[in-house]
């Protein structure tokens, strides 16, 4: 290797490092604010070194009506929605992946089309519809809508993961007299467990962060998940306790960050390309 080329490479690496660090510094400021403010007894709106460390903000928000009830509501909504999504997606993906049919391609194209529709746009008609059929302000209504809105992407992902499980393994089971349901549950799903985990975690994370759906479909404050109840900090009481808001944000965000780290290794760029990612 010629040394001018090598030194040019080192120079380019330093330049790239510098460029990335500038962007990282800009991106880290809002994150630094939430972390520093959550342990700051006198938090305000700017990034600053805390005036002493305190866990007071956390103890102030760790109360049933501020934290536990909304988080439990989030868990019920997103847990229920995720369960329904994953079960329906696994069932639907199986024939799509295993049995060739003329209908598969049009069905998959429709699914892919649905993954990219702006769900925000249909929330007003969903609200109007839910008022008519008495699903408004119910947990099950919101769970059903969550599942339906996440389902297209979940089917798409699940089908792609299922395609990577070789068919031969199943054929052995079929000759032993297993039916499709048994081979799906006993052979295919265990073999694609990492893929199924990605679908599960991804659906859950999307629902956990979703604000607009519960904001529109739920009305009773006691039923609200954390994504909506967090707005109460800006409530009608005038003064905002920024430290407590920051502490609550940390508590509410931690589960999804941990879940993301759990599946991050499997989320290549190919995954990102496979379908829509909507906020």
């Amino acid at each position, binding site marked *: 290797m010629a040394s001018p*080329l090598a030194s040019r*490479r080192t120079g380019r690496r330093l330049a*790239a*490092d510098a*460029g*990335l*660090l500038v*962007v*990282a510094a800009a*991106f880290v*400021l*809002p*994150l630094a*604010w*939430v972390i520093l403010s959550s342990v700051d007894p006198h938090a305000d*709106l*700017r*990034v600053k070194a805390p005036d002493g460390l305190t866990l007071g903000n956390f103890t102030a928000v760790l109360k049933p009506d501020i934290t536990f009830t909304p988080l439990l509501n989030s868990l019920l909504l997103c847990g229920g929605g995720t369960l329904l999504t994953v*079960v*329906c*997606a696994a*069932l*639907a993906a199986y024939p799509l992946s295993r*049995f060739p049919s003329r209908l598969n391609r049009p*069905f998959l*194209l429709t699914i892919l*089309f649905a993954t*990219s*529709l*702006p769900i*925000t*746009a*249909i929330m*007003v*008609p*969903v*609200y109007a*519809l839910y008022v008519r059929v008495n699903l408004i302000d119910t947990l099950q209504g919101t769970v*059903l809508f969550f*599942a*339906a809105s996440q*389902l*297209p992407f979940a089917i798409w992902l699940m089908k792609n993961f299922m395609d990577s499980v070789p068919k031969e393994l199943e054929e052995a089971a079929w000759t032993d007299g297993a039916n*499709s349901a048994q081979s799906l549950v006993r052979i295919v799903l265990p073999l694609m467990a990492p893929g199924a985990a990605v679908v599960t975690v991804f659906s859950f994370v999307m629902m956990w962060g979703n604000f*607009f759906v519960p904001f529109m479909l739920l009305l009773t404050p006691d039923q609200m998940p954390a*994504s909506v109840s*967090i*707005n109460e900090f800006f409530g009608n009481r005038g003064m905002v306790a*920024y430290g407590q808001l920051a502490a609550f*944000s940390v508590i509410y*965000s931690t589960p*999804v960050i941990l879940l*993301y780290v759990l599946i991050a290794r499997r989320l*290549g*760029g190919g995954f*990102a*390309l496979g379908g*829509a990612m*909507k*906020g």
Partner: protein
Amino acid sequence: MSTARRGVRARSLTRALPVAPAVVLLFLFLAGPIAYCAYIAFTDLQLTGQAHSSFVGFANFRTAFRDEAFLNAVWLTLVFTVLSSLVGQNTLGLALASLMRRASKPVRTLTGGIVITAWVLPEVVAGFLLYAFFRREGTLNAILDWLHLPRQNWLFTLPILAVSFANVWRGTAFSMLVYSAALDDIPKEITEAVEVDGASGPRRLWHITLPMIRRSIGTNLMLNTLQTLSVFGLIWVMTRGGPGNKSQTLPLFMYEQAFQNSMIGYGTAVALLLLLVGSLFALVYLRLLRTEV
């Protein structure tokens, strides 16, 4: 013969049975609302105790195109989409992805981690963090003071710019991941050959890299645009569409018409337009993916 065919049909029906729960859910809760949307967009349905609504034809759409607030929302949506998605997320994502290929591992990991954390955070939390950042007494002005630059009340004077930057902060990770994967797919021989040839950076980008990842650029632009069209929570938390309607994009306008002004029919007409624009982008996206399905 016919019994055999019937047998085949029965078998293919049994085989298709597992798709049924998903299809039912999608029909009732996704296709249903879309059809209902197309219906009530042509009625004068209101929020408050109205006995029944009546069909009004294209009246809602005519009202919309004469409504200055609607045209304002269309314009702001366009600005928001172009600034934050086409220019911001897309360019910054590509820049980050290509810098990462040359950077040292610790810097790469650190930057990737920070940018992805911004993306994984719940939408409302991201909204609060950027609200704090752009507020008059927030971090951005503190930095400007320190640099002796003039400060601004960003959320008041330039709210659409502030929410666009917020969307860049939140959404760049997606483009970065897409472009990292696309750049990884470029065969190593090509990059090395070009490097030995000593082609300059911009020429290399324009003549080699961009043509080779053009499909990823296309799909990424479509997905970014679709995501940006449906942003609600981020803007709602930061500005509520205000002050006045200076950051009121179409989803916020739709919400205001339907709920604050009780005009469900009118709000839905706006929603239908948004849905149509979204479908158009989705079709282009499908076309780009065509060979992969």
